[in-house]
């Protein structure tokens, strides 16, 4: 029972951290695109 409680909390933050990672990769890609735009 308690295992599922920990799993639920771990899953919640794993999902949010995965989304944060997606945002970080998007930020890096946009920064790269902006640099390329300035070069052209």
């Amino acid at each position: 029972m308690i295992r599922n409680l920990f799993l639920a909390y771990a899953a919640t933050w794993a999902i949010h951290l995965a989304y944060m990672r997606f945002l970080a990769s998007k930020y890096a890609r946009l920064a790269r695109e902006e640099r390329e735009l300035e070069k052209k």
Partner: protein
Amino acid sequence: MNKKLIIFAIITVALLAYGFRQAMFIAPTEETMGDIQRIFYYHVSSAFSAFACFFLNMVASLVYLKSRNPKTDAFALAAAEVGVVFCTVVLVTGPLWAKPVWGIWWTWDARLTSTLVLWLIFVSYLLLRRFSTAGQTPVLAAVLSIFGSVDVVFVYMSIRWFRTQHPQPVMGPGGGGLDPRMAHALLWNFLAFACWGALLIWMRYILERRHQLIEEAYAMRAVQGVAR
């Protein structure tokens, strides 16, 4: 980086830590379910945040259809994406709570099924935005989100309208009541997750606006190139 965003992020993390403490250590243990009931504080707060995100998405979509302002379109996308994240949490934590309490991971009752349909509608909204190449994509997405938002009302009311495996409401109209210490923990988690959702929407909105401005710059250069 945006100073206001950093201050808001620090406040949000403090609220989440306080909400976690309330949920895990301060709220009393429920008599019949035991400690597993503590999933409630994340599960319900995530559902509330998902509903709020989808509502904001609907409002932004309506404003976009009226104004065609790209800022409202960026906000609609941000709210839908964060709503899907919260709805995913609801769909994952729900079965983890259901298995030890009901003896089953899933049942096709009105609340669970309508929540899954809500998630699918907004995942399709995000896929439409990601893969459609038509110039009318924001308009089509806005219309889809308005129809999708109707399901939010259905999900919320389903436990009142139908006999479901999912428990009846414990708060609000028709609620069965909640121990004040549990209500206290729940309200802090509501607030903490609402702030967390707002923070994610804020960050995603900034990124989407940057994306829009880059696209605009490329389009302007293409037009100038043609003009020459």
